[in-house]
């Protein structure tokens, strides 16, 4: 299984350094961003499993960042890193389903924060498994019905029906527009990043 990645967002270098120090022996990859904008750029380039963000940041707040990510990458498990003084904000975020957990800042015990992160990674794996399961179930359904289809995740083909092997697609698996010459019958979006194209 590929290594999980956690992205931390905080405008304070000193906080990011403490996090890096705390997690240096944890079995997952850790990335850092100093702003919401930088975080979104990283998310577009890297596969992020868990996002941990401060709330009070200049330009783009943590809540705005969470909204963006929830919309564009709903599979990313979201956590707020914040002080107790932000309780109304935290409650609102929790009640609107924006976040999975929150880590208090300053955190008293490293182990508490580590456990929350481990739980978030386990949850992320569970979500991915569920998506895979639902995708597999959908594939079985389409195969039984005799459909010809392909599946993409973030615009990359991850499943190709055997009848499409011999076509132009075989040589253009990772090209951005391999579908133009085929007659697309139906497009299903399992999530904003995961799509199924049915051709017949």
């Amino acid at each position: 299984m590929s290594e999980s990645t956690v992205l931390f967002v905080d405008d304070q270098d000193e906080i990011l350094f403490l996090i890096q120090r705390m997690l240096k022996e944890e079995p997952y990859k850790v990335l850092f961003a100093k702003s919401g904008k930088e975080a979104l750029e990283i998310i577009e380039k890297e596969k992020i499993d868990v996002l941990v963000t401060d709330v009070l940041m200049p330009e783009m707040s943590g809540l705005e960042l969470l909204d963006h990510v929830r919309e564009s990458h709903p599979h990313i498990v979201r956590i707020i890193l914040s002080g107790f003084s932000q309780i109304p904000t935290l409650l609102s975020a929790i009640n609107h389903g924006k976040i999975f957990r929150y880590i208090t800042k300053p955190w008293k015990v490293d182990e508490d924060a580590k456990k929350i992160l481990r739980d978030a990674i386990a949850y992320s794996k569970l979500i991915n498994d569920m998506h895979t399961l639902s995708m597999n179930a959908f594939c079985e359904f389409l195969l039984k019905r005799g459909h010809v289809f392909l599946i993409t995740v973030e615009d990359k083909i991850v499943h190709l029906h055997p009848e499409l092997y011999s076509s132009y697609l075989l040589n253009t698996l990772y090209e951005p527009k391999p579908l133009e010459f085929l007659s697309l019958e139906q497009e299903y979006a399992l999530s904003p990043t995961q799509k199924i194209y049915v051709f017949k």
Partner: protein
Amino acid sequence: MQYEAYVDYDLEELVSEFMKNRQKDLRDLEVAFELNDMEKIQFIGHALKGVGSGYGFEEITSIGMHIEHASKVSDTKQLKQLFEKFGDYLLNVKVIFVEKQ
């Protein structure tokens, strides 16, 4: 007044920079106070609260928390006292390096 801060040995190299950053925070707080910029004061107080105890400076977290609260209600009298206390702390804190627990 004398203060003590218990800091992990492996943060020793960073303490000098950390204290310089806090001196800058104090200057920024005073400028914001002159401009009656409570939002900026709240922001800095919040940041102090977040960063202090992580480096072993519990008092900075406490002062930051009080600054954040006082700025929310524009309590200028208390803010002045807190800035004085913060300045006094930065001048007089004795850093004691300890093994990480």
